[in-house]
């Protein structure tokens, strides 16, 4: 396939692209080409410049130097021209319109390029429905996008690119929120389109996906291309090493077995109508419990109940043996519970505010003197947190929107670590985080739990659950259907448990 691809004409050429934000050099002489029907992976750590390169490619951001050529035509700094040239980009943060419905979102790009002056409702809606059918996803086209879970939003963003009949599709981490079966379906779609000659540029931190789908790889490190070539020249270890400059262990993290202690929080027969029932869970200091389940299995609702956002209809929650009722999130926080939400951009971050404020918002008490904030101490604490979590930024005063995706995730983690919680609940803690940093975050969480904190991780990433946890609970259709010691279970076994629909 690769050899064939090389004979085909290049549909996309980027040459010696350079970009800096102020003093921060983001891209240095990056070149990249894409032939018809080629699927190229753009790999690199968080902050290596992948998204920036894509924004330059699509004309959203101007390069300082270098050229972009699409289908033989040099591109200026014009997003609309790039779209009409057949380029379609699925951005890391999807750029959907939350207040519009699914079909309006899907039909939107097509409407822009066709220069619709009137809103051609029925045609656009039919196009959307047909695209969704082609992808074999069941989403009601009339739902407003804001009501969809993250994974469905991701599918809608992909459908929008497909509906636009794109010749080049760029996907910046399109699969962060998708489950294995959804990813498999997406890969099928990509395969089919590739055979029709569509070229793909694909960014993902999930190594298996890269090997499952790509023909060629370009690896960025610190804004430079470090290696480039056909997929056959790489294996998982060498790719990771090229990205990070070191080798990363992917096995289960070593740890000292925690002494059995009394639970910090336990739930008994907890239930919430239509979402989950009969959940028993014990969260002990020094133990990491993962809840794995598919989207819609009730895992997020369970976590939100333990954080006081939702209330249970039945059962009880006890902290230190005493029953508690949370009226709101603040109650749970006062009990020493922290929650890292699933959807970083809408629930986690104050995007246009400073990194500093994002980190310290939940722990302002630490730097109060007579009711006033000690600004210097506050900034210093934020800087220490940035260093401790290795957040890539020159300082804490830029807005958090200037950080790359994985670094934004660390800011949310830092916020809660500053708070020093007794129980930390993390919903998808490493979504969008690169392999190296993922390992680091896992190490951080293990260290956190060994220092006597209870940790609960909600995830659909099975290898993450195994690498990280002491105990794994499998949740299927609102019920806990399996309990495993992470030492004695392997990925395939766990995966089969997770997809066992309706066994309960």
């Amino acid at each position, binding site marked *: 396939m690769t050899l064939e691809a090389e004979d085909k004409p290049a549909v996309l050429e980027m040459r010696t692209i350079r970009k800096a934000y102020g003093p921060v050099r983001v891209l240095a002489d990056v070149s990249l080409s894409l032939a018809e029907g080629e699927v190229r992976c753009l790999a690199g750590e968080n902050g290596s410049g992948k998204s920036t390169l894509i924004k330059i490619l699509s004309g959203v951001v101007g390069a300082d130097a270098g050229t972009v050529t699409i289908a033989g035509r040099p591109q200026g700094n014009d997003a609309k021209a790039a779209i009409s040239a057949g380029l379609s980009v699925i951005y890391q943060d999807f750029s959907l319109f939350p207040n519009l419905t699914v079909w309006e979102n899907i039909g939107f790009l097509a409407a822009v390029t066709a220069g619709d002056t009137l809103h051609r409702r029925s045609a656009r809606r039919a196009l959307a429905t047909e695209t969704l059918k082609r992808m074999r996803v069941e989403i009601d086209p009339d739902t407003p996008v804001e009501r969809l879970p993250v994974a469905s939003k991701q599918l809608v963003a992909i459908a929008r690119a497909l509906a636009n009949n794109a010749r080049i599709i760029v996907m910046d981490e399109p699969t962060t929120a998708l489950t294995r079966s959804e990813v498999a379906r997406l890969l099928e779609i990509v395969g089919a389109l590739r055979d029709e000659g569509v070229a793909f540029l694909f960014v993902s931190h999930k190594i298996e996906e890269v090997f499952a789908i790509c023909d060629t790889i370009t690896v960025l490190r610190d804004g430079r291309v470090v290696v480039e070539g056909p997929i056959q020249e790489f294996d998982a270890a060498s790719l990771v090493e090229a990205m990070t400059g070191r080798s990363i262990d992917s096995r289960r993290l070593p740890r000292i077995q925690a002494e059995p202690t009394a639970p910090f929080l336990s739930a008994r027969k907890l239930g919430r109508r239509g979402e989950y029932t009969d959940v028993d869970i014990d969260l002990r200091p020094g133990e990491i419990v993962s809840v794995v389940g598919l989207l819609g299995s009730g895992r997020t609702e369970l976590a939100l109940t333990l954080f006081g956002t939702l209330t249970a209809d039945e059962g009880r929650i006890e902290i230190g043996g005493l029953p508690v009722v949370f009226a709101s999130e603040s109650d749970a926080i006062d009990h020493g519970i922290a929650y890292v939400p699933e959807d970083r951009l*809408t629930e986690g971050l104050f995007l246009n505010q400073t990194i500093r404020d994002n980190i310290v918002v939940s722990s302002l008490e630490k730097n109060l003197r007579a009711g006033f904030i000690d600004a210097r101490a506050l900034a210093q604490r934020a800087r220490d947190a940035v260093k401790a979590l290795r957040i890539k930024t020159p300082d804490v005063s830029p807005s958090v929107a200037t950080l790359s995706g994985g670094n934004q995730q660390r800011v949310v983690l830092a916020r809660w670590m500053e708070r020093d919680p007794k129980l930390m609940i993390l919903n998808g803690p490493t979504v969008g985080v690169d392999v190296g940093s993922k390992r680091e975050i896992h190490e951080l969480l293990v260290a956190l739990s060994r220092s006597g904190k209870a940790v609960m991780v909600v995830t659909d990433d099975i290898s993450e659950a195994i690498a990280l946890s002491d105990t794994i609970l499998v949740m299927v259709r609102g019920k806990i259907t399996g309990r495993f010691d992470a030492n004695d279970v392997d990925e395939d076994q766990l995966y089969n448990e997770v997809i066992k629909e309706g066994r309960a």
Partner: protein
Amino acid sequence: MNARQDTTNSYLKSLAVLTVLIFAVLAVTSPSFLTATNLNSMGFQFPEFGLLALAVLPTMISGGIDLSVVATANLAAITAAVIMKAAPELAWLAVPAALAVGTACGAFNGFLIAYLRLPPILATLGTMQLFAGFGIAITRGPAITGLPDWYTAFGNWSIGGVLPLPLLLFAIVAVALSVLLRRTPVGLRLRLFGANPVAAKFAGIRERGLLIRIYAITGFIAALAGLVVLARVNSANADYGSSYLLLVILINILAGVSPAGGFGTVAGVMLAVISLQFISSGLNSLSFSAFSRDLFFGGLLVAVMSLRAATGSSGFATLFQRKAKPS
């Protein structure tokens, strides 16, 4: 994806330059502008609407607005006037009572917004009518006049003959509000809440208490404005200064406050207040009518908003971004 912090600062700088420029132009073109009388009279004029503009600032940073500030100020002034006239021996109570009424009005707005979840613009549109209605019920229509001399003397007193008392009050409130916004947990939470209410909830910010507090502070400052007006015009009236409302919002927009929440500084409001006062006195001394002044201000509001939308530093761009980048 721009660093908003930086654009806020550069916006403030250009606003400062603009203010100085207006000052210079008027000083040269209008012979009566730089006279002591004019400067002194400006010092008595702008504190009232300056205070009202400061009052609205925190609500706008929180992503809301308070349209009832003028009505609140009037109701507070009426309260003070009624007490001073009815019971001269209790006159010392007039000022605290007026401030209490203003704070209560604000807290009531906060309650409507935090507990009944009314959109701020509608809630305060309603209470604007409500508070004005109370005022009319108390005064039965006409203005209350004939306040004690000691009180009106305050309003027209200049410290050492150069620093008008209302101006000093304005400066004190500005400093206090600036400290509140920058150096207290309430101020920081308020800004973050304005930037993203959902994330604020997950970060453990107690929304209800915060909103009630913010609107109560707004009511308190509005009451101060009402007391200043009362001393200057020597009468309390339920529909005084209705044209102030637009001016106050214009000031906040000109000050770089984002209508979508999350941004806004006291320094910006100060500069906007001062430059608008310059313009207004300048137009006055060039003998333009009050009507053409309104026309000018209206035009300015549209121009500033368009400019900020075009340079991407406005709240409208933020609003748009929120739609475009929901996830």
